[in-house]
């Protein structure tokens, strides 16, 4: 039974193994938990390492002990259950690309109103794993995703985004490990204030038969300029916040001489945004003009979008419209060291827009090892 709990917890994304399992058994043998409530609390204390994992624990526990109760409010319940949906290999069966967004949204709301219960599979109701255009982890083309992480990746829009509700976050990257990697990005040069070189002073003083000989040198200072450009829209929202935290923390650690971050939605167009909510913005050409040739550019994004979003100009009527890919090429031409970090695993990179962007910027997976390779690329002296 406890092995099943372990397997279920791992399936929910908790990074636990045989060690935690044995620890739990040890605690049980010492009589820490005597009833099911006790077991719940004890297991949580051992299996979770952060309050963000509590939700996953709840699910794993409920699944294993089969007393998962559904809350009375259907709407709440619906979103919640959609969030739990399992990832699956994409196999497209329904094609809904002929509908535009408004139609989709309208149909979605209609269907939500009709629907009375939870639904998995099938081709009509909002649910999981089906070929209806609405729901989660579905395989319908051009449909609409409801909450949660996308499995099938065909959704054009995300209704009911509630990823950030409560404490739940999906641990895509471990900030700490990445921070350690980022430290290697430092490019130190002796350009700072004059300071006492203690070792050398002692050395020279000793050679000087004890007569004090002061040796000075310049302080080491960072010379690296870094600009971070992040896709903060839709499916990227959960990643963007973490990445921003990561780089902000790194810049606080004096890793960089200067650091700026901008966000965009899907791809870069005329404007770049300077805040999370995408209200304060700057013209992209201005940002581009201010970049120094030796500035390191770090893009973060899943790079997967509808092809027209990358290859054709996106603008209001009457405005000049450079395509997203053209903007990206300009960034590449401006700065010689740049990388693209992709939070998606490489198996999803066969997507046409991902490979197009991968052709411009060296692309790395947003993991510790990918980051390490990216840092190597960025470290090249320019």
């Amino acid at each position, binding site marked *: 039974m406890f092995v099943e709990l372990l397997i279920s917890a791992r399936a929910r994304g908790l990074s636990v193994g045989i060690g935690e399992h044995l620890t739990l058994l*040890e605690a049980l043998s*010492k009589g820490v938990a005597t009833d099911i409530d*006790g077991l719940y609390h004890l297991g949580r*204390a*051992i299996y979770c390492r952060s309050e963000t994992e509590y939700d996953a624990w709840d699910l794993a526990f409920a699944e294993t002990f089969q007393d998962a109760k559904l809350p009375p409010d259907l709407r709440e319940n619906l979103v919640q259950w959609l969030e739990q949906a399992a990832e699956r290999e994409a196999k497209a069966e329904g094609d809904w690309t002929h509908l535009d967004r408004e139609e989709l949204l309208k149909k979605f709301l209609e269907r939500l109103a009709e629907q009375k219960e939870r639904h998995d599979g099938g081709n009509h109701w909002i649910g999981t794993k089906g070929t209806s255009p609405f729901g989660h982890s579905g395989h319908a083309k051009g449909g609409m995703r409801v909450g949660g992480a996308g499995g099938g990746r065909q959704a054009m829009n995300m209704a009911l985004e509630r990823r950030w509700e409560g404490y739940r976050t999906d641990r895509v990257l*471990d900030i*700490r490990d990445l921070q350690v990697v980022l430290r290697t990005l430092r490019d130190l040069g002796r350009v700072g204030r004059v300071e006492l070189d203690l070792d050398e002073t002692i050395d020279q003083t000793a050679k000087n038969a004890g007569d004090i000989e002061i040796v000075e040198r310049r302080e080491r200072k960072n010379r690296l300029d870094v600009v971070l450009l992040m896709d903060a829209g839709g499916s990227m929202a959960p990643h963007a916040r973490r990445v921003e935290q990561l780089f902000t923390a790194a810049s606080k650690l004096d890793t960089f001489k200067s650091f700026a971050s901008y966000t965009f939605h899907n791809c870069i167009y005329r404007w770049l945004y300077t805040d999370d909510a995408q209200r304060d913005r700057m013209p992209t050409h201005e940002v581009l003009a201010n970049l120094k040739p030796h500035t390191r550019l770090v893009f973060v994004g899943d790079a997967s979008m509808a092809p027209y979003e990358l290859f054709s100009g996106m603008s209001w009527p009457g405005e000049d419209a450079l395509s997203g890919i053209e903007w990206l090429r300009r960034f590449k031409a401006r700065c010689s060291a740049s990388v693209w970090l992709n939070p998606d695993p490489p198996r999803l990179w066969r997507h046409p827009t991902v490979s197009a962007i991968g052709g411009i910027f060296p692309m790395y997976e947003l993991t510790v090892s990918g980051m390490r390779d990216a840092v190597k690329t960025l470290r090249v002296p320019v």
Partner: protein
Amino acid sequence: MSFDAFAGTDDYIADDGLLASVNAAIALRRPLLVKGEPGTGKTMLARAVAASLNMSLLSWHVKSTTKAVDGQYTYDVVQRLNDSRFGDADVSDIRNYIRLGVMGQAFASDERVVLLIDEIDKADLEFPNDLLRELDEMAFHIPELDETVAAKHRPVVIITSNAEKELPDAFLRRCVFHFISFPERVQMEQIVRVHHPRLDQALMDRALDRFFAFRKTTGLRKPPSTSELVDWLTVLSHAGVDVESVQTGDPFLGVLFKQEQDLVAATAPKRRTLY
């Protein structure tokens, strides 16, 4: 249970989850890592555990400059150098210049103690990693003396974090984790009762109403927490504020809100409903 179990104390209210976590940590002889909003009683927990288990408490308050070795021992080289010049003390014995840090004292203690490592996230990124071996083996080596200080009795280790920095995975794996969530109203009333046993019930109800309403106000930089509520009630009862004006007049809000913007944000929506 085959070990000394913690059951809360008269002046510390703990929920089942917290009790289970503390007891798991004691039984498994692992450090207990406690996270939670400021003011949810993380540091108080260590005191309560010490009191309940009848052990003494050693606190190591971590600062941004704290190094792992500080908790083990310090070697006062400057004092020794100074003494050697003036011949005041016996310089030949290094032992005279080695002082055990808080962790060292906990290990060397003849009785089992509770060791609190407070706000571990304040220190450098590498700090928790530097403690791994010490917490695993409950021993450390002093190269200057070529001696190993090993714990006579494994202390009950309680570590608190405000989640300012992420802690390393290797460190987390060795800990029993507990997140203290903000108390629900019923539990909050119990907690307040511990501090104000003779408080008028009507005043308590009104104050709690206002308090939980304030916490729901969006955009607060620092929502008021338990300790602020307790302070607020102290002020209200001392000043003899009548029950009705707690609801309408918002007296002494400075106790609840430490930042000017929060004070403005908390009171603004209420005025709108009055007119």
